[in-house]
């Protein structure tokens, strides 16, 4: 117990004196955490967009404008019984127009469809349980008839369309975007680790003679290491908190006011980690990395 107090006291010694090595460690941790805190949410949002695209792969069943309500209802029930169908959504003509409007950069274009005629048909949007089962569903909707041509299972069906051709393209684009984002995220995290490790290494190098002396007067490796780890932990904590303070400040003063006007920022998907959770993870990472980094780096100087 008194050991623990001693190690903590020792760990704080360099910080109390405001020694250059600990300050350098704090600065590096603060900056890398700040960068991660800014860039990770951006990467997440971009990755989220890619996922959205992937979700858009579906089978659409377009209906004649004169399809009756009962035809439509029967069709919906039938569709729900097809294997591999995850969900079916009915999209009315009005809904279709609204969707188109939402997806255009310039919604006015739709409003100006002259005479306000609505040329869009009603449809069913069918989500497959997997992107690969698109074909099965399509064939179930249009089993081959007597002459070998596909025959729709309901007279209400004007046309069945699956995005099978696009599917492969979209799947590959969305996965390349995601891989790309993952690569950048991995790069960022590796870079942060290297930067922090590098600084810790140099900060211990600056005190290598002291470490050597400690060894020579009979300190065990762990006796030397604990205070350094406590110091690393505290530096990580301070650096992380400084960074998170700056991030919160930036969020409140810059991002939040803008969030309304930029969809990119407001589009927080369920796949993205919530901001407070991210901050906690970063803080924990900073603390653990610098503590372990200190302990680990020290090995090199404990050979005497």
């Amino acid at each position: 117990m008194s050991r623990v107090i001693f190690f903590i006291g020792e760990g704080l010694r360099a910080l109390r004196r405001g020694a250059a090595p600990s300050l350098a460690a704090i600065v590096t941790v603060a900056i890398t955490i700040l960068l991660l805190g800014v860039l990770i949410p951006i990467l997440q949002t971009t990755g989220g967009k890619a996922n959205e695209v992937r979700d858009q792969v579906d089978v659409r069943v377009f209906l004649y404008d004169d399809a009756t309500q009962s035809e439509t209802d029967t069709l919906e029930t039938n569709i729900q019984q097809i294997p591999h169908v995850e969900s079916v959504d009915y999209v009315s003509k009005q809904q279709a127009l609204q969707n188109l409007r939402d997806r255009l950069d310039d919604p006015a274009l739709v409003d100006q469809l002259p005479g306000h005629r609505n040329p869009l048909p009603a449809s069913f949007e069918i989500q497959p349980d997997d992107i690969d089962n698109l074909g099965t569903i399509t064939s179930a909707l249009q089993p081959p008839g007597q002459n070998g041509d596909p025959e729709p299972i309901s007279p209400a069906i004007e046309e069945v369309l699956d995005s099978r051709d696009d599917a492969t393209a979209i799947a590959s684009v969305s996965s390349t975007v995601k891989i790309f984002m993952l690569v950048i995220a991995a790069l960022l995290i590796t870079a942060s680790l290297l930067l922090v490790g590098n600084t810790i290494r140099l900060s211990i190098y600056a005190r290598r003679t002291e470490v050597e002396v400690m060894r020579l007067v009979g300190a065990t490796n762990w006796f030397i290491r604990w205070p350094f780890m406590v110091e690393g932990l505290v530096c990580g904590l301070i650096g992380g908190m400084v960074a998170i303070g700056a991030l919160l400040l930036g969020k409140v003063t810059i991002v939040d006011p803008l969030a309304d006007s930029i969809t990119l920022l407001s589009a927080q998907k369920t796949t993205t980690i919530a901001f407070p959770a991210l901050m906690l993870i970063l803080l924990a990472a900073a603390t653990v990395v610098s503590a372990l980094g200190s302990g680990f780096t020290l090995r090199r100087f404990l050979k005497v």
Partner: protein
Amino acid sequence: MARSDTSTRRRLRGRAAERRPEHLTERRAKPPIIELRHATKIFPGGHVALERVSLRVDRGEFVFLVGPTGCGKSTLIKMLIRELAPTEGEVLIAGRDIATISNKKIPQLRRRIGTVFQDFKLLDSRNVYDNVAYALQVIGASRSEIRSKVPDALRLVGLGDKINNFPDQLSGGEQQRLSIARAFVNHPPLLLADEPTGNLDPETSIGIMQLLYRINRTGTTVLVVTHDREMVDKMRRRVIGLADGRVVRDQSAGMYSDDENTTEFGLRLRDEMGLEE
């Protein structure tokens, strides 16, 4: 220096009296505390610092190690605490070949050997008090033990009023004495002192030698490297002479009374070296 601190001195002398019989009677029965067997040290680059050095130092002895500059004295000291490993031959401490000690156990060895380094090797980020305290902290001494022992040790070397100075705020001689205080504060059974008086004036040197003598009388084996020929001559203790990495002299200079007490010893030294008390 220590002259004013009679209580500590009495305490030390008391201990010496208790231990004396054991260490006198059993001295020959136990293995020598230091033994070198044909120890050779060749540095990378080819310089032969020590060449087939063999010597034994028994428990409780007081030994001087002398020799011209660069003859390998510090190298020998460094081998005893395994800061350096011999290129050939063996180094035994208390009968054990220290090459066989695992890296993890080396701190244990070093804690039982107090070392005054030629270049002091102080902890620059700690003040005088904490430098000495560190030697107790590594052996897991309690806070109260540290609080009582550290000021004593510092008073004995005359640094009682410099407790809060950092090493770079000390004079050369003060740094040297700090290094000495750290070496003996945890009462190690073996004390190695590499030129402990190189930066000290004759009067203070005698005080330090007197201190080492007193520590020796409590049963601690003391090995002192020195260039102070006068001191060596006057102290009438065993002298090992090195030259060019070889032992060229090893004489247990006779005619010294084992029972001379510290005050008598100090008086005689001062007298013979022409210093008035």
